[in-house]
């Protein structure tokens, strides 16, 4: 068997906001096509970790290695790095002044320099894929939360990233809309997208996740295959957390 390709490696990552130390010596490895699920109570640093991975936040020290290259904010063109690492936010953050298709084609045209025609073709393909083939010209304000999040996923995919980060993509949705978004994410995972997902949807973590990481108060407490984490957690804290949410 060949070694799997390493897409992300984090070594001894530390991060503080002022006096508040939020990430302690985080080590993390994500291989190509893996779906890594980050779980943990609110405030444990999951979002901060994810945001460090595409440099919306800057680490204090430690290493972040993306596709074999150690990335440093002061020596690398972060805009280039971010093109490889797509992100989906809890609150969608769609551009309200642009139509659904306009949201999806914006960055490919402006950043990648795609022609409008190419961008539209690819944008429509992606919107069809996430089940929004009938909404190209609609403004985001007319969409349900689930539809908005699927547009956000298509928008990120339009940059053809190698890695996708999801920060609680279903937490802002009405319960009946959660399924459609998780389904889209599951398909993406099955197609071989490398994904890091922060979620409280344990069913998704178990079914789609290849690796589950449990964080508490800025530290990784335990990680392992989903079955191990959910059925035989080694750490008391993991057990307590799982009991509290299931």
């Amino acid at each position, binding site marked *: 068997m060949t070694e799997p390709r390493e897409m992300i490696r984090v070594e001894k990552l530390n991060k503080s906001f002022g006096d508040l130390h939020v990430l302690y010596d985080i080590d993390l490895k994500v291989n190509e096509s893996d779906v890594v699920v980050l779980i943990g109570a609110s405030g444990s640093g999951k979002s901060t970790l994810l945001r460090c991975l*595409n440099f*919306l936040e800057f680490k204090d020290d430690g290493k972040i290695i993306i596709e074999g290259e150690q990335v440093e904010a002061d020596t690398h063109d972060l*805009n280039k790095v*971010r093109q490889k690492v797509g992100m989906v936010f809890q609150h969608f*953050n769609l*551009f*309200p002044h642009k139509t659904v298709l306009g949201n999806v084609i914006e960055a490919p045209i*402006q950043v990648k320099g795609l022609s409008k025609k190419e961008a539209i073709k690819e944008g429509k393909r992606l919107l069809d894929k996430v089940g929004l083939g009938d909404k190209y010209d609609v403004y985001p304000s007319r969409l349900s939360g689930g539809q908005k999040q699927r547009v956000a996923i298509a928008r990120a995919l339009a940059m053809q990233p190698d890695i996708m980060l999801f920060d609680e993509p279903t937490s802002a949705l009405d319960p009946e809309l959660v399924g459609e978004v998780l389904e889209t994410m599951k398909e993406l995972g099955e197609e071989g997208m490398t994904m890091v997902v922060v979620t409280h949807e344990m069913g998704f973590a178990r079914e789609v996740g290849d690796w589950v990481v449990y964080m508490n108060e800025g530290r990784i407490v335990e990680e392992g295959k989903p079955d191990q984490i959910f059925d035989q957690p080694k750490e008391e804290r993991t057990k307590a957390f799982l009991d509290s949410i299931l």
Partner: protein
Amino acid sequence: MGEFFSIFTGSFDVFMEGLWLTLRLSVVSLLIAIVIGLFFAMLKISRIKVLEIIADLYIWIVRGTPLIVQIFILFYGLAEIWLIPEFWAASIGLAFHSGAYIAEIIRGAIQSITKGQTEAARSLGMNRSLTMRRIVLPQAFRRAVPSLGNQFIIGIKDSSLASFIGLQELFGVSNTMGSNSFNYLPYFFTVAIYYLLIVLILTIAVNQLEKKLAVSD
């Protein structure tokens, strides 16, 4: 009443010239003011202390001195170095003045656009200036339309001060005709009607624009 009516119709042609000058002054100064305002709004959100102080200083000077003083300084003061035509002295003076208010309007509008918008754009690989140009400013401008419209209305009325440096815009016309006829009041009523009509039309136009921009809401 009959006298007023005949003065109103009799002075129509001259007032039309004044109106044309008022509109030119207002539009030219507004356009310059938007550029100035945008520039100082950028300084204010730059998070670079020196630039912020420069912007604050500008806004403080404009807000702290009467517009008529600003126009006089520009016209009489600068005339010693560089003979600046009345039209441009007035336009630049008005723009310099409105620019400070517009800077604050634009800064407020930019800051009202949530951080999530910037983050989404940056996460797609858009750089700072692209994010500002394509994502933040278009939304900020939409949000600023009512306030900008309001500032434009103030600018139109403020342009009457240009008469003090000899420009025969609307107010200048009414003043001249009043003094020539030794009968000021009907001419001042007449000019008031012109201003009211411009402001009415502009108010309607801004409302229409707001409606049009609201398609995405």
